[in-house]
């Protein structure tokens, strides 16, 4: 088997393992809170259940409401396809520009926020407004953190960056990773930014936007959210912990790479779960200070990098 072909299919890992990652994070959270919690396969059961259900759709909903689940899902999917997951081989990664990836994700977010408004409920509107507010502060953090890696690696292509990067090869990378981690928490809708487990509509951000969805549409939205989470983990790993990624094209060299990748992703899952369990959600208007802090970290990392001379 020729290497390149298998590797172009590595995004399938994100599609099919992302619910498992979600289930895993939930399990870790449950255990750290002294609960048994649902089994780690629960997200799969939930998706299957939702796909089988009928939908209830608001009378005021326009085509945006119908299109959003597909746009969101496809945008995450498209971003996944061009992201190196465990192998750097494959022609498609030439398109894998990190900025393209981030803004492909933003397209999904844009439609999700529109859909939240579209159904005409107060909670959806609140969720959308908060999501948009957050996006304005999160995006610069994400981009700044990425720039550190990009300047150091001399490219914005993820596959080139991953090839060149070693773990924390400069102090700048440590700062950039810290900033990226905060942005990742915000992007995945987790405590202290958002609370994915809440039933309190008035406090919701991501959950508020998808509150009006049901059945297969909701399944798509949820699945896209799981994938986005795993994709962001993957980007973090590509940028900051690329060890174990398969660089050559031999089938033999390929064998351990997916395993190493999954181990890395799940370790990150543990970190996220513990972060989430050990603190309370922040007051909404204090989020800018958290994210602003992260932005300063990211900015510092770029400056450090330039001063240390890459």
């Amino acid at each position, binding site marked *: 088997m020729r290497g390149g072909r298998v590797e172009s299919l590595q995004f399938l890992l994100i599609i099919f393992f992302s619910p498992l990652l979600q289930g895993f994070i939930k399990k870790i959270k449950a255990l750290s809170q002294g609960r048994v919690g649902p089994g780690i396969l629960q997200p799969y059961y939930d998706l299957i259940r939702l796909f089988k259900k009928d939908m209830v759709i608001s009378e005021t909903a326009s085509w945006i409401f119908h299109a959003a689940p597909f746009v969101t899902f496809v945008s995450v999917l498209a971003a996944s396809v061009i992201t190196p997951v465990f192998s750097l081989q494959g022609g498609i990664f030439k398109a894998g520009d990190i900025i393209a990836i981030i803004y492909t994700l933003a397209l999904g977010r844009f439609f999700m926020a529109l859909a939240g408004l579209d159904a005409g409920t107060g909670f959806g509107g609140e969720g959308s407004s908060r999501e948009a507010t957050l996006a304005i502060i999160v995006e610069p953090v994400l981009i700044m953190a990425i720039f550190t890696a990009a300047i150091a690696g001399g490219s914005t292509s993820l596959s080139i960056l991953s090839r060149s990067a070693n773990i924390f090869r400069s102090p700048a990378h440590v700062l950039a990773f810290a900033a990226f981690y905060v942005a990742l928490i915000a992007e995945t809708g987790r*405590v202290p930014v958002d609370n994915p487990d809440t039933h*309190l509509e008035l406090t919701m951000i991501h959950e508020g936007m998808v509150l009006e969805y049901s059945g297969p549409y909701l399944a798509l939205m949820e699945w896209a959210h799981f994938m986005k989470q795993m994709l962001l983990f993957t980007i973090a790993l590509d940028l900051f912990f690329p060890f174990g990624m398969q660089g050559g094209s031999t089938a033999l060299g390929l064998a351990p790479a997916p395993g190493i990748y999954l181990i890395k992703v799940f370790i990150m899952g543990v970190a996220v779960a513990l972060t989430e369990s050990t*603190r*309370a959600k922040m*007051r909404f208007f204090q989020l800018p200070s958290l994210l602003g802090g992260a932005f300063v970290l990211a900015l510092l990392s770029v400056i450090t990098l330039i001063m240390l001379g890459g």
Partner: protein
Amino acid sequence: MNPANEIHKKLTEGEFREEAAMLFDNGNPLMLMFCVDEREIGGGFTVYAVFSLKGEDLFMVLSFPVTEKSGRFAYKSITPLVPAAHWYEREIRDMFGIEPLGHPDPRPLVLHGMYPDNLHPLRRDVTVEQIRSRIDLEREDNYNFVKVEGEGVCEIPVGPVHAGIIEPGHFRFSAVGESIYFLDPRLFYTHKGVEKHFERIGFERGAALAERVSGCSSFAHSTAYCLAVERMAGVEIPEKAKAIRTLLLELERIYNHIGDIGNMCAGTGFAVGYQSGALIKEKLMRLNASLTGSRYLRGVNALGGVSRDVLEKADEILFTLDEVTTEYKDFMELLTGSVSHMERLDGAGVLSMDIARKLGATGIAARGSGINQDMRTVHKHLMYDSVVFEAHSRGKGDVLARMMVRADEAECSFSIIESILKEPYPGPLAAGIKGFPALSSALGYVEGPRGSVFYFVKTNDKGEPLRVKVRSASFCNWPLMPFAVRGNIIPDFPLVNKSFNLSYSGSDM
């Protein structure tokens, strides 16, 4: 004859107004206000107002007969003078058809649109069948929510059906961005007609009904009811019954307070705190189940005393409390040590002392705002005259203050229970009650987990219930909510709401 600590004054409408305003202005809180349909015992509609006299174990019960003017019952509202009367007067208007002239809020309180006009359920000549046959579920509800107009004002309706397992209530927020400018709550979606039902079932079965008024205040309600009937019948309950009632009241307080403190963590999204609180609450509720056969302490209170000797299981109580005390200390350390959690509580949902006093706040809501009022110390009942404890209050009026009052009180309850269990209580569990005197009345009261719970019972000429008035803590505290959330941001509302932990069932009487 009235119980010794009740001073009854029969006044005219004008005197009533003056006297009520004077008492209230001098800092004597209005405890409850209600109407009794006394037409069958040779009177008319009589409005009562009960004030607790400051610093004394005395209740001033003022009353006046409402006069009929051309077929209409009306009197001059006392709300402009005694703001704490506002919900009571609206309730009386709905339930008896007596108009408080000049009341600032002309909207109905209890009755929703489906309810027929000009049918006032608590009038004695209105039957339940009559009400049932005339209710029209299709009829539109034209409630005038307060409208806030202006640029950027956004109206957000929430409820009455909520996520999670809670009862119905509608909240109409007027927000500017994320800031709450005004909140107009609407409750009484599941009004149960408890007071009417009390009149139909007789005193004996009343205790079982009282403990179903509000789930987690079951024991407070049944105790207040039993005390009212016992006081009216002039029955002194045995020491043992007093000890058991006090003990169970405190157990109810502990499980509620710890559960509430844990629930606040759900409001801030602090999962570990929430689960720890739930775990301790569960242990206490299992203790309840083991002691009484009911997790909500039901089926113990009976007229004249109690039906179960809970003290037989003193060892089990002490053992569980010992375990819980340690866990509770760790739990509080976890919470107070969590900067992110405490940060959210501090300064959120401030209820000023002035508003709390004017609107007649009770319990945690009052004590969090610096009003140190506790039935257990002001009107000592049961064993509270012999156990040593302190009433706690905090001055800031924010969510944190309410949490800390709960924490202090829970610790206090632990020591109250311990000191009760030190003494032996020989003697019977209950005293017999030989009939109920005709044309008598009495108040019954306890300090429940949320605040004071009041019952007023009155008999007709045959010694049957003429009126059973229930006043739960939540009825007093719900109107405070709009004041506490003003200026807060919308995502903080659930947290502020949880810090009051008001009962829907407790007000949907």
